[in-house]
Every structure is written in C-alpha cells, then in structure tokens.
C-alpha cells in the first residue's frame, strides 16, 4: 500500500484524449514528510507515519514539536499512518504526488459533509408514506412502525431512525488518477471525493 495526504481543492471537468468530458476533483496532494518509521521489531507492526500541512509552532504541544524536530521538519497539522506501506522512505524524507501514475486506480478516504439531524427519508432512504391523502394528515415522511407490540415488545438494536447524518469517514474505491501536475502537487482524480472543499483526504492504493 502507498498513500499521500492531500487537501480537496474543488471539482471541474476536463476533456480526455478520446474527446470525452470527465468530471474530476482537484486535490493538492503533499508534499508529506515521514515523521516516524514503525517496524515490527520496535512497534509490533510496519507503518509509515506521514505529516502534511503547516501548523503554528505556538499552537503545537511541545511533545509534538520535538517529534517533528526529530524528523527535521516544521510542525504539521495532519498526521496519518500508512500500515504496510510499500514506499521505502527514511525519517525526514518527503513523499510527493509522483508516487502515483496517470491512469492508476486509487481509493480516497475523507470525511463527508455534515448534514445535521435528518429524518429517515434522507438518512436511510425510506420511501415515506407515499400518499398525501387517505387520512395521512402531516406524516408523509414518517418512518412508520418500528416493531411489534406483544412480540418482541421492544425495539431491535440498530433500528434505523432519524439522527445525525454525515461527518463520517468514507472510503471511495476504484477512482482513477486522470492527471498529475508534479510541480504544483495537484492530482486530478475522476469523480467526486467525500468532504467539502479544503477538507483533508487520504489518497491510497
């Protein structure tokens, strides 16, 4: 597995060689700094800890500042771990978007936009009552029955109801790297990725 942390910039569309218009997302990916190399011997598992985005030194705890200093870098805002990473990098080395090639399949992990408290129709795709007449009064988007009365006499765990929606970590698989601009650290990925513009995403494969 290999990966890089990035910032979602926004969406656009480009024309590919065959003349087809493809919707794609621009991600400012990297450069990320390797802040720790974990191995089976020392930590029990193999992983690469990478950091991305500048943070103010005055807002960073001293322990973290020393951790970044050990990697010979400035304080970073996002730190993530790549387990069983196929990239061999030493402490303090940087990872750039050229680890990916154009046309490669990748998956993107991000946090979806928060939707707030939503009903079952939007949150779980319930169809609602479906009719406005025949005595429905004002419950067209109601969930209906949530269980039997005499049996089971309780509500089953995991019953889908209204509640907070969005803000979940979601992985979108099988997206394609359309284009890479190595000098600007921009990666163009086909389709949409989770989260709002400016949110942090992890591109991996």
């Amino acid at each position, binding site marked *: 597995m290999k990966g890089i942390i990035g910032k979602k*910039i*926004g969406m656009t569309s480009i*024309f590919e060689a065959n*003349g087809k218009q493809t919707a794609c997302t621009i991600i400012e990916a990297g450069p990320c700094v390797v802040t720790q190399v974990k191995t089976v011997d020392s930590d029990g598992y193999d992983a690469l800890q990478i950091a991305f985005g500048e943070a103010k030194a005055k807002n960073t705890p001293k322990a973290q500042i020393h951790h970044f200093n050990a990697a010979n870098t400035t304080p970073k805002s996002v730190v993530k771990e790549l387990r069983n990473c196929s990239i061999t990098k030493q402490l303090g080395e940087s990872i750039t978007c050229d680890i990916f090639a154009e046309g490669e399949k990748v998956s993107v992990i991000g946090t979806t936009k928060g939707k707030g408290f939503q009903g079952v129709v939007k949150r779980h795709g319930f169809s609602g009552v479906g009719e406005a007449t025949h005595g429905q009064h004002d419950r067209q988007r109601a969930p209906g029955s949530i269980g039997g009365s005499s049996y089971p006499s309780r509500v089953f765990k995991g019953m889908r109801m209204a509640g907070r929606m969005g803000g979940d970590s979601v992985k979108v698989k099988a997206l394609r790297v359309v*284009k890479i601009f190595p000098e600007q650290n*921009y990666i163009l990925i086909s389709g949409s990725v989770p989260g709002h513009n400016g949110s942090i995403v992890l591109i991996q494969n």
Partner: protein
Amino acid sequence: MDAIVFVHQQLNANASKSYPTFKAGDNITVNYKIIEGVKERIQSFKGDVIKRQGTGATQTFTVRKISDGIGVERIFPYYSPNIDSIVLNKSGRVRRAKLYYQRERSGKSARIQEKKRAVQVKAK
C-alpha cells in the same frame, strides 16, 4: 479557486480555437466530429442558441432546432475538442439571455427576428 483556473490553463493551452462570438437568439451551425470506430466524420447541427451557461473551461451552450416537427435540443461543451467549427448564420434580436419560452412555441411564433446591424455604405 486559483488551482482550478491553473488546471484549465494547462489543459486548454494547446486548444487554440477561435469561434465567432455568439449569444442566445443567434442561429448557428455546429460542425461536430463523430468518431465511429476508426472513421471520423463531421455532422452539422443547425439551430438557434437558446442558452449559454457557465464560465471558463466548463461553459456550455444549448442549440435548439425543429427536426421533422419535433423540437431537438443539444448541449455542447464550448471547449469540446470534438467541435470542428462553429458558423454564425444569423444574429437574432431577443430580450432574454435564456430562451426557454421557445419550447412552448412552434411555427410562426417560434421565429426569432434578425438583428439589423448598421452597415457602412460606400460613398459614390
């Protein structure tokens, strides 16, 4: 937003096409490349522009024509590499930027008046 502008500049750098300026109400012919397997041919679509939408590299325009009595609309991306050329046939006099009202019209009332332009007359 700067990143999006940058990406478009990079991608459209080699697309040096110049089309005549047209707007909603104009009658244009779009010569569109159609690729069938290995063969490529050009199909022309002639009609009235009823809408120009979007900005920058993703802008599109919609052309409407009446084909065998049935209204046909086609949306073209302005910077599509498959557009061979655009010919401006007539510029129309309209008061709207989006001519959706044309969808409810047919026959005589669907005609768009041609815009009269001042032409320099050569002195005798």
